[in-house]
């Protein structure tokens, strides 16, 4: 039976000591899960090792943790794969301190086997004990923030609501969320803005916005667009999509909330998020790379490119962004002062711009929303699109 070393980040709140690394050698079939490994360590060696868990089958959402730095469910991660990932992460060789370890790195390889599987509590959440985090303040409070229940119009019909069958399949993708918190743990926006409503709660919000039985669609969208910690606070980094063990793809749901807010209801948010996104898309379509100065102007005063009379809000924002621009020049990201002038930015050379255009055209022709419940499964997008178009 294969042997593995689990490097677990522990915290015993009653010990008056800070967090520390503890290592356990376990022995189990490679097809079993990291959770099975943790439970073996707990059962055989140390019953005080705490982890929430229940179903062992990725349906209850209890065992969200970070494994080798990635947020996921311990029960869904095969221990053999986690070991292979640990090896890849360390370049198959020398041990490195795991990401997120702000104190002592884990002990060296002597006596612990090379490349242990590193297990930590979820991020963006206070730790209660060992792998147990406080989800109430960081997850459930935000779920409650989005008015998480159906608000139908008037009295219920005598029979069922008659709705488009596809719409139920659509919201089933969000109902598939098991509230494990892996997306919250991985969210980069939340690291910067702990007030961000976040991927799980916004996916939950789409579950109602996408539900034709709900009568408050516009009010919900308006609320989420105007909140400075709302839908425009997402930076599009895809971390939550990678982390989600159930294919809910929270970021996709956030983007759908944005599209519904902007296209269906024309909601202009105080964060200027809608115009910013629109300007971004248009500039890339025209130039292939980002003209950051033009982006600022277009975000505030759409369509006045070339005229040097930006709206007052844009001027204010331009001035506000001067320190960022200076940092950009210093670090070499912004290569010349000329670039500070909106519209001076060059197109991509040698026909590359045409390729960018083709990507846009392709996207427009294939505007089918990928929903895992009907269009196929992860990693099979070609087949998924084909099936979807059948």
């Amino acid at each position, binding site marked *: 039976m294969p042997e593995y070393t689990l490097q677990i980040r522990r915290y015993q709140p009653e010990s008056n000591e800070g967090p520390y690394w503890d290592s356990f050698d376990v022995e189990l079939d490679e097809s079993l899960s990291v959770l099975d490994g943790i439970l073996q360590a707990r059962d*055989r060696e140390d019953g005080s090792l705490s982890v929430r868990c229940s179903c*062992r089958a990725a349906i209850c959402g209890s065992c969200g943790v970070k494994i080798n730095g990635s947020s996921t469910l311990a029960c869904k991660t095969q221990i053999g794969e986690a070991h292979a990932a640990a090896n890849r992460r360390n370049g198959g060789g020398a041990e490195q301190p795991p990401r997120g370890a702000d104190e002592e790195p884990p002990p060296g390889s002597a006596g612990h086997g090379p490349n242990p599987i590193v297990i930590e509590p979820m991020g963006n959440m206070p730790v209660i004990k060992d792998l147990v985090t406080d989800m109430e303040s960081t997850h459930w409070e935000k779920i409650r923030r989005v008015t998480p*229940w159906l608000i139908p119009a008037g009295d219920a019909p005598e029979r*069922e*609501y008659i709705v488009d069958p596809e719409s139920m399949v659509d919201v089933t993708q969000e109902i598939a*969320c098991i509230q494990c918190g892996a997306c919250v743990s991985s969210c980069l926006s939340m690291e910067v803005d702990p007030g961000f409503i976040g991927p799980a709660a916004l996916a939950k919000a789409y579950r109602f916005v996408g539900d034709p039985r709900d009568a408050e669609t516009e009010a919900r969208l308006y609320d989420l667009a105007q909140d400075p910690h709302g839908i425009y606070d997402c930076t599009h980094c895809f971390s939550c999509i990678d982390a989600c063990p159930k294919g809910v793809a929270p970021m996709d749901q956030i983007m759908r909330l944005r599209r519904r807010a902007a296209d269906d209801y024309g909601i202009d948010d105080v964060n200027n998020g809608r115009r910013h996104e629109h300007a971004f898309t248009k500039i890339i379509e025209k130039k292939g790379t980002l003209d950051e100065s033009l982006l600022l102007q277009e975000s505030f005063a759409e369509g006045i490119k070339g005229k040097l009379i930006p709206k007052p809000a844009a001027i204010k924002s331009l001035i506000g962004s001067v320190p960022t621009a200076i940092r950009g020049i210093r670090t070499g990201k912004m290569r010349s002062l000329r670039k500070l002038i909106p519209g001076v930015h060059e197109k991509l050379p040698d026909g590359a711009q045409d390729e960018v255009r083709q990507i846009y055209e392709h996207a427009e022709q294939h505007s089918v929303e990928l929903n895992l*419940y009907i269009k*196929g499964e992860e990693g099979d997008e070609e087949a998924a699109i084909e099936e979807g178009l*059948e």
Partner: protein
Amino acid sequence: MLVIGAGLAGQRAALAAAEEGVSVGIVSKVHPVRSHSNAAQGGINAALNPDDSWESHAFDTVKGSDYLGDQDAIEIMTREAPQEILHLEHLGVPFHRNEEGKLGTRAFGGASAARTYYVADITGQAIMHVLYEQLMKHSAAVSRYEEWFCTALALDDDGECCGVVTRNVSDGSMELFRAKAVILATGGNGQVWQPTTNALICTGDGIAMAYRAGAKLMDMEMIQYHPTTLAKKGFLITEGARGEGAHLLNAQGERFMERYAPNKMELASRDVVSRAEQTEINEGRGFPDGTVALDITVVPKKRVHEALREIVLVGRDFAGVDITSEPIHIKPGNHYTMGGVKTDVEGRTTIPGLYAAGEVACVSVHGGNRLGANSLLDTLIFGRRSGEDAAARAKRMELGRASQAVLDDEEAKIAAILSREKGSGRRVSEVKRELGETMDRYVAVFRDEEGIRTALETVRRLQEEAENVYVDDHGSVFNQDVLGAIELGYMVDNAEATCVAALERKESRGAQYRTDFPERNDDEWLKHIDLSRNGGGPEVSYSEVTMTQWEPQERTY
């Protein structure tokens, strides 16, 4: 009033009581959405189509129960089912629709019509999350105690239930919660068996607490083995797979159900299919790993992705099998507790003020064998009815006087566990493993007197050992170790009750198949086995099966 457990039965009970205007507390040892109702994949039965009838649903259930189900309760459940489905739909459950946008159904085992309503293969999860949305909505009326563990029921001087002793998992503090009525909705006891489809939290807490407090248990021998579970870890493959048309094959590639249930084939009752599989395996026609195969490749791929996606993931993540392109190896595995705390159709147990609903309870609607997609229905119908009746009681009663002594006792018990030295007894995990393996070996699909006696002897030894297990964690915050020791005590008491009842029933009916008594014997055994705790051990008595309109017939599929 208090609800213990926050799966479907508990949440439904709490909401029903809140609608009656009483103040409700719902206490759960895990966060409500972690509850095991999540695992119900396939759907929920109701005769809602105009061309279906509740009588047909009721008859299927009676037949499925091998005539041990109480027909008055079954009538209530099947009559009220359609309204409950519509209620859930109105609350927001995204049930599958047909092309007209109306509720659509799928076929399920043991049913004479396609009457299973579903949300992909996450029906339990979808309903539970929607009910939790409603709990959040009604937070003024329902206080949630999330991650509070119950250790004992409190009775007043008149023997009525008036509260419960709890431990706050997050800080270890103990409290006596007082209430005018207490509803147990703590689920089943699958963890008594290893492997099992059940979650780690399914440790029979409510059954044991009620039994220790003096309530009667019923039909404890009736333990369902589900026909399609993964061999190693017992994970569930939904009956919905067979409902969608998947075949069962032995190692020779033979569709063996032809020989056991020529009409319903793979969709016979679960006890029938599990016995057929176990027979194939025992007689050498299974695979070397003690399994047979479930072939889902006969179901169109698109349909699999739409309706069985969770199973695609389970196959991929836990068995390394792409179910859309190859058969998956399965075998019968522990799945469901048909028996439990004896209740009437309003959820009332034999202790006044104490109710039970869902898998912890035995009304009995499932009798000797539960039909697929009837468990969600059971939790909701009897959860609601318990909530309503308990609310009515709470309105007319004064708060009973619970003695402080029960809290002191429970604190002392926990202190005793914490004070045991390492190595003074066995580890919790060792005792639990021996219990699970013993029960799975002797009190499973096929049973006989010798085996059950062996199991009972072992269980009684383990009961003593469970009293003396030691723990490593001596802290207060999130001490799961000490809770594990308490759960182990619950489990061994559940096991004892099951062994005693299985030994008592000298016939084969439903999930109880005695190789030494292979026939059903209606003359002597068409009755429930009740157990109550008398002094140390369980005392057996009997109660009549309620018959309304269906006389026992030979049961074939």
